């Protein structure tokens, strides 16, 4: 469990924090996510996907549930994420700057429309349906662009 935490907490908080903009709340959600993982680890089925994907889905659902609860309103999503996410250099956070820069460069390589999807989905916390809705794109187009973007990422990240 500790291994899981050390290995994945950063990536999961990255996802949660981009859905929930408040630092304390995001970390609270992260805790809840790990408690859930701890509770349900028996129900993880390796034939249905990687452990990280499973944890990622728990994290996303948990974070999205949180935004739908009373103290959160949808407009927070369009609020300024930079406050929190870009505060990563501040005390308490240990983010490797090199990798953050690598991430930006990674995204620059993608065509504009694909970058838009990846950016909104992974970094701004939208679901595909939300992207389609808010930006007036057919869901099929969002899906196709997402697929092409993922293919591109596979090449860039050298997934064998």
């Amino acid at each position: 469990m500790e291994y899981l935490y050390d290995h994945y907490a950063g990536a999961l908080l990255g996802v949660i924090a981009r859905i929930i903009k408040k630092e304390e709340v995001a970390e609270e959600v992260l805790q809840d996510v790990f408690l859930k993982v701890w509770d349900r680890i028996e129900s993880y089925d390796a034939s249905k996907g990687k452990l990280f994907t499973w944890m990622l889905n728990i994290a996303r659902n948990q974070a999205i549930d949180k935004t739908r609860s009373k103290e959160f309103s949808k407009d927070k999503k369009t609020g300024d994420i930079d406050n929190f996410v870009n505060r990563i250099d501040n005390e308490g956070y240990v983010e490797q700057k090199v990798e953050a820069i690598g991430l930006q460069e990674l995204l620059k390589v993608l065509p504009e429309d694909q970058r838009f999807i990846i950016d909104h989905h992974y970094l701004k916390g939208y679901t595909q349906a939300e992207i389609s809705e808010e930006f007036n794109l057919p869901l099929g187009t969002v899906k196709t662009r997402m697929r092409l973007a993922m293919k591109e990422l596979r090449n860039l990240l050298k997934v064998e």
Partner: protein
Amino acid sequence: MNVEAYISSGVLEAYALGELSDQERAEVEKNLKQYPEIRKELAQIEEAQEKFLMNAAIQPRAAVKANLFAKIEGQKPATRVVKLPTESTGIAFWKFAAAASVTIALISSYLAYDYWNKWKKTENNLSELIAQNQRLAEDYNKVNQRLDQIGNYLSITDNPAFKRVVMTGTPNAPGALASVYWNESTKEVYLSIQDMKQLAQENQYQLWAIINGKPVDAGVFDSNFAGLLKMKDIEAGASTFAVTIEPRGGKESPTLETMQVAGNVVKG
């Protein structure tokens, strides 16, 4: 089903993103079991997603971890521990198992090396001991044989039935000395040398008994033996024993000029 069309529909990406309805998920999971291509494709999507999100990670503050694990500790730790052998906690288990096996491997290779050395040393010692033992056994056998021999000699020299005939040196060999033990009733003759010089290779000593003035061959011998040498039987009536030097193998009649020692049988 057209697997390629299925893959390019983007449904696997949506699956990895957790954006499918329960029904759609079940559908994908069914296909995953059936088509290895789909499994492979999903694995690649997931890996890209994981790597991407690792790049976008934000590390939580240390207090979060401490807090979390305090909570987990609080949750019935005993039962949780029992539930460990599952897919993910398996990782921690494997870490521990790997560390343990490395330790065990190190210890056992040291022990193996140590024992191998000891075994090697023991083996050397053992073969030395075996060799020593063999030498001792041989020596013992030799001594034993020698003892038997001496016992036999004694049974001859101490036996009153044997007459001892001392043969002293002739002018040819003034210092020479030899003895004959002769049992008149059994006709046995034994020879012992006290002092007789070494002969050239082509010559041998020959023992003669003089019976009624005639020399009778009693066998040939070399000077290099210890103890008693059994010679040819000699009939009763011999008055003198003498030794001459003859060509190797001996002759039918003695070359008297070469006579080395001679001695008369004491009557009685």
